[in-house]
Each structure stands twice: as C-alpha cells, then as structure tokens.
C-alpha cells in the first residue's frame, strides 16, 4: 500500500509541478557564457556572433522570426504589402521608449536605415532593392522597392537591421560615439556594466512595452577563454546557460547527462549553418564534374555526423539547409558508396594527381573532420595532402583560390536569395573573399534561376524556381555539401522559454524565466 501511496504522491507532485510550470515566474539572475568576448556591443556597427548574442537582447528589430522563420511583430505591430509587392507599410508599436526615456518613432527607423547602409555590409546588400523609405506619420514607415523582392520580409531581424536611437547618433561621429560603449536600445534588457575579460552585465528594462516582460532581473554574460574551463564552470554551477558552440563537441554528451540539464538544438533556424567543402572548379582533377561527384560518394557523412559531431546536425542534401525557405529534398542523392566513387574516378581518368586539402582551423572538431575526410578520399584512391595552417593563412589561401578542397561553413539567413545564391552565381566570383562563389562555378542557367527567384511572385513561383536550381546544383556538385550543423544550447532545466525564436539565445531573454 505504501508503494501505491508513494506513487500517487509522486504523480500528484509531478502533475502540480508541470501545471505550475506554465505560469512564468518573475525575478532571478541568469549566468550565461559568452564566447569569445565580443569586440564591442554596438550592433549597428559590429556583427560578430557574440555581439549579436548579447546585443540582440538590448536592441530590437522591426520584426522577430519564429523557428519556422515566419515574421512576427516586434517594434512593428503590423505590416501590409501592396498588390504589386513593391510597397511595404509597417505600423509601429505605440508607447515604445529608448532606455534613456526618449520615445521611439518612425524617424528612428529612417535614420537607422540610412546608418546601416553605411555601417552594416549585409544590411546594405539586403536594402539594395529599396527605392525609398518614408514616414507619413510618427507610427508608420513605408518601404518602396524598385522591383518585387521575395525575401524582403526576412531582413528585419535584430542582427540584420537593429534600430538605432537617432537622437544619440545623428550628427555625431559614429565610430567614436560614447554610446557605443554603453549602448541604448529599446530591448527588454539594458546595458549596465562590462568588466573586460570577466563579464558583461545586463539588467531588466522596467519600462519595457510588453507588460510583465522581461521576467529575469539580470543577465551576467561570463567571459571564460578556455573551453575546458567553460565546461567546468557549468558543472560547478557558475553558469546556467552554455550557448551553442561554447563548449567542445565531445563535452556535449557528458554535460547533457548532468542532473537538471536540458539540451536543445533549436534556435539556429535563421542562421542554419551549413558546412561544405569548397571544391576548386577551376583547375586540376576537380574541374571534372565526375571527380566532384566521386567526392560526394566517397565521404561518409553519417560517420562525420555521428562520431565527429556526436550525432548533432543533419546530413545535407544540397545547397539549401532543410530549415530555410523553398528547401526540397527532391534532388539527386549521394549516399556513402566508395565503389561508385572509384568507378567515377576511373571514368574521369583520375591518375592519382595530388589534391590539397585545407581543413578549417577552428579547433579540435574541425581538425578531426579534416582527418576523417582525408581518409575517406584516400580509401577510394585519391591522393590527398593536408595543408595545415591557421585561420588567417587558410582565409588567404581560399581568397587566392590556392587550394583544391577546403572546409567551410556559412549561414543561410532563411531565404535562398539572401544566403544561398551568393555561393553559386557567377557574379559573386571575386578574388580575396572567403565566402560567396569561392569555388569558381559558373553556369548561366543557375545565374538566371537565382536572378529570377529573388524577384519572382507569388511564392509558389519562387518555390518552383528554387527547386529547379537545387536539382541542377546537386547534379553538378560545385561544392561538396556535408552537414547542416547544429550548435546545441546546454542549460539548466529551470531556465524556461529561453529559445522560442529562429535566432534563439540572440533575442531569447525577452521571454525567458526561471523556475525556482
């Protein structure tokens, strides 16, 4: 009988706990790791990963994005698109104030757009189709485009287009503005202090426009330079949140098994980092499509996922990650098939010419991955020589096109027109850059498909165009797609609702609360 009572009690406890769990609690302090220490926090001028992670909670964009990348209201409470898809009208939220108490208005939006065009390379690119921006009244902003641009509603994320206070920046030298060191935004958290090399402290914005939010009183972003020390800091309870990429992969399983620890791979949908091998299409054996296909067959990508990335991520099927728009898996498949790889190499007349492999100098995981890929390729009879170099040296070689195979991973930004096309269209070939079309692939048909896809309407038309482009690219293998990377966020289970959007921790503290 005692057993049954105990069970009943346990069940009752469990039920009541989960029932309570729905109701957010106010208060508490969260310690999170930030790695590496950001160079600065002024999001309009610095877009490093760690800057986005901290400042995404200080600044805000017009829109926020769900994990499925649907736009959601943030500073804009509603928006409408004209019939011809060339005019976008945003209604701004009323009663929003900057952290210094001044009201946020349409004038700030106009100013931010102008400033970002000069300080933010990706924003400048995203805004290239914009003809003019106007503010008919204090709470309305109208963007008029030169021609319809399908991904337009995808460019208002806080890291891509943060809103900057006009009254503090207009007419000043932006680079030396004192507010760069103590940024003023409209976000749920306010900058409080930054002890270089130690921590960055944010405190709750008491006048936040969404009543009751944020729930957390303070965030400490702890700066811990050594990977092993970061793991230990979590184990000893010094930090509660390890954002993606802050500990080495092989530590993830061990930390995940700790008591009261929750792990999620969510919160990277907007970025959808996709890892691939640049294949130099210009010269040598890799100029032959069959050799490039052989490489796809020769590499055991499931092994890479299961062993090197500890089962995190997903084997890529083509140029688009499965989390971004218009993805299709209706493309030629390249399963691990060494025999087929050998046959293709033979057919292409490959005679053991030396091929240089450039791994990514981002630490252990990437080094091991380089070794595994090399072994895979040697197993099918390719002669591979690993070139070891540091990050700067590797970038130099890639930029100079002085490589045969090179590792990389790039963000996709939710839409093929923003993050995918740039890697395959021939207009994006330029010496000296480490992203865009580094492989030297040039195909007029692909150029046309991506050009059409960006401006086509309606959505179904874009879908059709991008499906065609994906199919064509996967057949040609301009680069060897490896994995959709996943950077798991490890945190104490008492931290609730931290990751609810497509950019995760970057703007997640708005909804997060602590279950004490």
């Amino acid at each position, binding site marked *: 009988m005692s057993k049954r009572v105990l069970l009943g009690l346990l069940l009752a406890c469990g039920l009541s706990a989960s029932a309570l769990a729905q109701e957010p609690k106010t208060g508490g302090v969260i310690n999170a790791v930030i790695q590496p220490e950001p160079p600065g926090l002024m999001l309009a001028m610095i877009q490093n990963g760690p800057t986005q992670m901290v400042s995404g909670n200080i600044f805000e964009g017009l829109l926020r994005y769900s994990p499925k990348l649907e736009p959601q209201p943030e500073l804009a409470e509603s928006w409408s698109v004209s019939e011809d898809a060339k005019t976008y009208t945003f209604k701004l939220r009323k009663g929003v104030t900057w952290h210094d108490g001044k009201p946020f208005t349409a004038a700030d939006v106009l100013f931010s757009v102008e400033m970002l065009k000069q300080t933010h390379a990706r924003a400048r690119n995203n805004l290239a189709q914009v003809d003019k921006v106007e503010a008919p009244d204090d709470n309305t902003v109208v963007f008029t485009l030169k021609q319809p641009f399908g991904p337009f509603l995808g460019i208002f994320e806080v890291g891509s287009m943060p809103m900057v206070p006009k009254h503090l920046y207009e007419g000043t030298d932006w680079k030396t503005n004192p507010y760069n060191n103590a940024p003023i935004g409209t976000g749920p958290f306010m900058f409080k202090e930054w002890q270089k090399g130690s921590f960055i402290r944010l405190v709750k914005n008491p006048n936040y426009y969404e009543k009751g939010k944020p729930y957390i009183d303070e965030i400490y972003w702890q700066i811990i330079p050594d*990977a*092993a020390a970061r793991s230990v800091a979590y184990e000893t309870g010094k930090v509660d949140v390890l954002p993606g990429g802050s500990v*080495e992969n*092989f530590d993830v399983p*061990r930390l995940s098994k700790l008591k009261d620890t929750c792990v999620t791979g969510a919160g990277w949908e907007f970025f959808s980092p996709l890892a691939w091998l640049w294949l130099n299409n210009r010269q040598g054996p890799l100029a032959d499509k069959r050799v490039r296909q052989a490489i796809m067959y020769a590499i055991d990508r499931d*092994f890479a996922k299961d*062993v*090197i990335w500890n089962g995190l991520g997903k084997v890529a099927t083509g140029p688009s990650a499965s989390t971004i728009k218009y993805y299709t898996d209706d493309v030629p498949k390249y399963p691990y098939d060494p025999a087929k790889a050998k046959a293709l190499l033979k057919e292409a007349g490959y005679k053991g010419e030396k091929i240089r492999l450039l*791994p990514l100098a981002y630490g*252990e995981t990437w*080094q*091991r991955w*380089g*070794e*595994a890929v*090399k*072994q895979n390729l*040697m*197993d099918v009879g390719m002669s591979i*020589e*690993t*070139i*070891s*170099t540091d990050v700067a040296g590797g970038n130099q070689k890639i930029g100079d096109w002085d490589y045969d195979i090179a590792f990389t991973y790039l963000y996709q930004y939710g839409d093929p027109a923003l993050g995918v096309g740039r890697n395959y269209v021939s207009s994006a070939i330029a010496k000296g850059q480490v992203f865009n079309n580094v492989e030297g692939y040039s195909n007029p048909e692909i150029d046309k498909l991506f050009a059409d896809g960006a401006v086509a309407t309606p959505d179904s038309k874009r879908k059709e165009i991008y499906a065609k482009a994906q199919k064509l690219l996967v057949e040609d293998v301009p680069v060897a797609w490896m994995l959709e990377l996943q950077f798991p966020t490890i945190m104490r289970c008492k931290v609730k609702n931290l990751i609810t959007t497509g950019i995760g921790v970057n703007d997640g503290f708005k909804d997060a609360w602590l279950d004490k």
Partner: protein
Amino acid sequence: MKQFWKSILKSPSGVIGLVILLLAIGVAVFGPLLFPNSPWRMVQRPFLPPFTLSTVPLGTDALGRDVFAGMIFGARVSLLVGLVSTLVALVVGIPIGAMAGYFGGRIDDALMRFTEFFQTIPSFALAIVLVAILQPSIYSIVTSIAVVSWPPVARLVRGEVLSLRTREYVQAAVVTGQSNSWIILREILPNALSPVIVLASLMVATAILLESSLSFLGLGDPNLISWGYMVGAGRTVIRQAWWITVFPGVAILISVLGLNLIGEGLNDALNPRLSREGR
C-alpha cells in the same frame, strides 16, 4: 672496437638502453609490415577501451582509429625525425666547431658569435616559429630541430679541438707540412669524437621530445601520425578516454629514457678516465 662493445655491455644502463633502442628500431622498421593498413583508417567504433578487442588491443581514439597501429607508425616518425635531425645538426655543428677551434682568432670569434646568436634564442620558441613560418611538414620539422640543436655540438667540438691542437702529435703533423684539412680530419677529429657521440645520443632523445612537443601543439606534419600528435589529439578527451594519451605518452617516455641510458653507457665506455678506474 671490441674493447668498446665490451665496456658498453659491462654497464647495465647501456645494455638496457641498447635493448630499448633496438626494440624501437625493430618496431619502426618491421611494425608497419604487420599493419598494412594506414593508422589513419577508422577501424572500430570510437573510444573503444583497451584490452576489449584483440584486433585493437590498445583501443581506439576519438575517430575509431587503432591506437596500437598509431603507436607503431608513430615510432617510425619519431625515430626518423630524431636520427635525421641529429645527423643534420652534427653535419652543421662539427665543421663549425672544428674550424673555430683549429684556426682560432678572427675566424673563431666570427663563428662563435654566430653560434651564440642561436644560443641566445630559447630553442623551443625558435623551433615553433620556424615550423610555423615554413608550414608544418616533416622537412620543416627536421630543419627546425636541426637549427636549434647544432650550437651545443659546435661549442663542444671547438673545446675539444682547442685542447687537442696543442698536443705534440698535432704539432708534429704541422711541422711535417700536412695540410690543415688533413690535420683536422685525420688527426684531431677522431680523437675528439667520443664526447660528441655521447652528446649525439642525448640529442636524439631531445629531438624526439621536440618533435612530440611540436606535434602536441598541432605543428606536426598533418599527413604523418606521430606520438606527440596522438597525445595532443587525445589531450582534450582525457577525461573520457585516458588510453589515447597514455600509451603514446609511455612510448615517448620509454624511448627517451632508452636513449639517455645509452648516452650514459657510452659515456662510461668512452671516457678514458672512467674506464681506467673500472679496470
């Protein structure tokens, strides 16, 4: 020569060292014949503990590669780097030292200042810089180890030559009109060699350690497996898999110890004062 072997075999440390060295050389030469597969090949599931499967007796590393095969192939790289770089250091150091000691004066000054230039830079730091500049490869590693290890040879040889060149038999050779190179090569160097041989055996040990340290730091030849690389690659997972670092670490320890013992044995055998006492 017979005398030499006899005396070296008399010292227990020399015998132990010699056995270890022969064993290591045997492994380096014949080991790869027993393991036709590349040590980089992923053969079993990752992190397999040692002594669980007879096919991979020492377990597997983070990618499922055979630790035992890695050690066998690593012996080849470690010994090769040790021997070749020492040889290069001797080839550079002995002539410089001999010329400095024999000719003296300005030549001596010039050569010794040059040598000191190298000696003032911390050798490991210099080796790191050289490998980093030349891009890590087996050639750049041998070169950099040789560059940092020849100065002691030059100084030692110079000292020996300085004391030998005042001996009567050398003066006799000068008087009979022998050429300088003949005197250095035939009269002086053979008598100066014993301490150099002792030093050389210790240099091989140092070179193996240097190569391991470079590989540990990720500056090894990425295409060749070596003990230092294995320790470096396994270091970060030492809490989950001790065997990946421990076995190659023990291999480094034993081979360096063996070479030091040989050096000691050689010292006993070649030092005339010590051997006379022994008699």
